């Protein structure tokens, strides 16, 4: 098992390397010169002299390899440079906005788990009943409706028409309700179906038949055995979605004026604030790597057979 963990850790290195290459390439494949982007963002007319001066300042007149090595060195100390727009260190700005995004992401994870676990199980146990139909409807809804549209609909009904909840902003629990529901619907749609399929699969397994033969009560089999085994795919799904949520709440943050990391990133794109975009891409890559690693380790903990290469391939 230790060998597997070691290998898994080592495999992160090439992925991080690719992530740094991608962020580096961003500057060089973009049609806009970073020096020009900086001056435009600062509303300064880009004369040739100023452009030259800025290129020198950003180290863009150095050989590519030197630039790359310098960038990696800085990133290692969380130095992502200074935002073109605000003149503040990018990491400081990102760190200031992360709590809002983390808050939204975690509540959405929690809410989707609380709704989808019982719903998924009920849909499997009472197959083809009204509850199964309901879970199917939610899944269709979640899978087919764009998040921004759902966000607007919720605002229209619950805030404007019924006047129950605030339209936008952050601060109280009421502010959380609509964005969390908007983000969760997609997750609930996926988790419910995942759990339903998984429970149905487990119920066909021989250990369940064996337990029945042993005379165990149906409810006991469900709670003690089937459920635990069925949680495996759900946990991996949740792990991957955590990464997605932490980096991908952009649209929801925009719709609900949630002052998070995603909205900051949207502004950066519009203003060609390259250091911020670079930081985001790198940070997102690291988050996904971490979330995947976390999922793998949890699964390994739950099923040590994974560490053997055969088990891994079967998985």
């Amino acid at each position, binding site marked *: 098992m230790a060998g597997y963990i070691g290998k898994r850790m080592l495999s992160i290195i090439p992925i991080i390397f690719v992530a740094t290459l991608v962020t580096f390439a961003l500057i060089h494949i973009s049609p806009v010169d970073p020096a020009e982007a900086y001056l435009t963002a600062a*509303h*300064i*007319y880009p004369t040739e002299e100023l452009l030259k001066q800025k290129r020198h300042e950003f180290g863009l007149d150095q050989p590519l390899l030197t630039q790359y090595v310098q960038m990696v060195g800085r990133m290692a100390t969380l130095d992502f440079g200074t935002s073109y727009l605000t003149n503040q260190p990018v990491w400081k700005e990102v760190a200031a906005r992360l*709590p809002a995004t983390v808050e939204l992401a975690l509540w959405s994870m*929690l809410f989707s788990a609380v709704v989808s676990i019982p719903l998924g199980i009920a849909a499997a146990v009472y197959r083809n009943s009204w509850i199964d139909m309901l879970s199917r409807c939610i899944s269709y809804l979640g899978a087919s409706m764009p998040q921004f549209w759902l966000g*607007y609909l919720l*605002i229209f009904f619950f*805030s404007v028409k019924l006047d129950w909840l605030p339209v936008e*902003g*952050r601060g109280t629990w009421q502010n959380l309700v609509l964005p969390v529901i908007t983000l969760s619907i997609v997750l609930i749609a996926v988790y419910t179906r995942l759990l339903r399929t998984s429970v149905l699969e487990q119920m066909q397994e021989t250990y369940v038949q064996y337990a029945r033969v042993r005379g165990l009560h149906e409810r006991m089999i469900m709670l003690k055995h089937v459920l635990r085994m069925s949680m495996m795919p759900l946990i991996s799904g949740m792990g991957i979605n955590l990464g997605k949520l932490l980096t991908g709440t952009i649209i929801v943050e925009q719709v609900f004026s949630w002052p998070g990391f995603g909205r900051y990133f949207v502004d950066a794109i519009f203003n060609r604030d390259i250091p911020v975009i670079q930081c985001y891409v790198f940070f997102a890559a690291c988050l996904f790597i971490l979330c995947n690693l976390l999922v793998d380790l949890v699964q390994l903990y739950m099923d040590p057979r994974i560490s053997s290469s055969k088990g891994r391939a079967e998985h």
Partner: protein
Amino acid sequence: MSYQRQRSAIPVLATLLVVLLLLAGCSNTGSTTASSSASDTAASAKSITMSWPRDIGTMNPHTYNPSQLFAQSMIYEPLVSYEKGGKLAPALAESWKISKDGKVYTFKLRQNVKFSDGSDFNAEVVKKNFDAVMKHKDTHSWLGIVGVINKTEVVDDHTFRLTLTEPYYPVLQDLSVVRPFRFLGEAGFPDNGDTAEGVKAPVGTGPWMLADYKQDEYAVFKRNPNYWGKAPAIDQVTVKIIPDAETRVAAFEKGELDLIYGEGVISLDAFQQLRENDKYTTQLSDPVGTRSLLLNSSNPKLSDVRVRMALHEGFNKQAMVQGITSGLEEPADSVLSKNYPYTNIDLKPIPYSVEQSKALLDEAGWKLPAGGTVREKDGQPLEFEMIFDKTDPIQKAMAETIQAEWGELGVKVNLTGLELTVQIKRLKANDFDLYFWYNYGAPYDPHSFINVVASPGFGISETLSAIPTKKQLDEQVRQALSSTDETKRQELYRSILTTLQEQSAIIPISYIKKTAVYQKKIAHFEFPASRDDNPFEGIQVTAP
């Protein structure tokens, strides 16, 4: 397999989730209190709440993005203020004298003016602000006055003198703009005096001061108790940062906002819908800028004035503007609207005439081949590329309309949607046939407009490069900017604008307007004279 292991994994995950949630919760405590305090204070009778798409920024009077102009203008004041119709009125300067040669400006500063922290406003602090700006001359080179300032002097406590290297008539107009020549109090300066690195606190002489602020969430402005002028009728303005236009409308309909104000801050559809609702009041401003189409005369096909005129006459501007902007923009007859200084002149409008247009193209040698749909001359098709900002729905719709209308004339237009930054880059590189362009508005125009007509690098001079009288035009611009004779200047403006109208290398399409939508609680609302200024001075509210 050990079930024991599986059992313990779930509590571990659950604990992790709870810890993370607590962390998120803790980091949010500050904003909870701040946010509720903002909404509590906003409830006062004489206060209003409005929204803005972006955070107000660092409130540095001498730098640009991310500080928002309207908010800067609430805190910081100019020496001279820009009033309706381009009139210049005393602000922090009570009066001024201009030397005969137009090179020395002596300002008598208003007495008994105090900054919001109670410190004195005097000639020393004026010089300190000017010097801080001029230390970064390159940054501000877009503003004409920056290129001609030679010396700043304190004559006495309340007299400040500005000496120029050469005469430049729009000095006072340039001093009235929101940035960079506005005044920060001594306490706001950083220790090394270099405001480009940031300010310690937003200390200004304006009617408002920043009372509470949370980045990306809200800003609360309260009346400055030390304000020298007439106090505003309202005592508090809360600005909520709402980046999404539809959310802004929803917040307004729910009553969370009293006012939505600005350019393009809500969609035209939403504005129409709110306009039709009796519960709200809506207003449209005078023109704040002109939406124009540049025809690059350095392209050999567009170098012929008959072709340019044919294109100008060959589309129904009235119907297009009405149809696409639902009447929220006004069809434009000239490049600059009449509400700027020197532009209130009668230029001959270019009428819509398909027949005349076809005749002009025929005359220029561009004939429709038998059975063909695109005109040709010497084997060349009459074909152009029109570039537009792909994120701008109005530009896209207009580009498509013009493409269809010119198609009927036998002119082929290929549309290329670009990102704004790439679009601007191509304008500056003179790499375009047809381009959507906007002038700057008050208080920058008309002098900034004629400046780009003559100065290379902004794309306009290049657009006009092949018109026969370009040299003469450039000379007229130079004279107009440096002339000290008002009558002569008016004549020069008339001549410049007439030439541009006759040459049709810049086709005016429509006048852009600001919109304001407000609740009945607001009894009086007036648009500011300057495009970038804040609208709060004139606002009056009725008791709830």
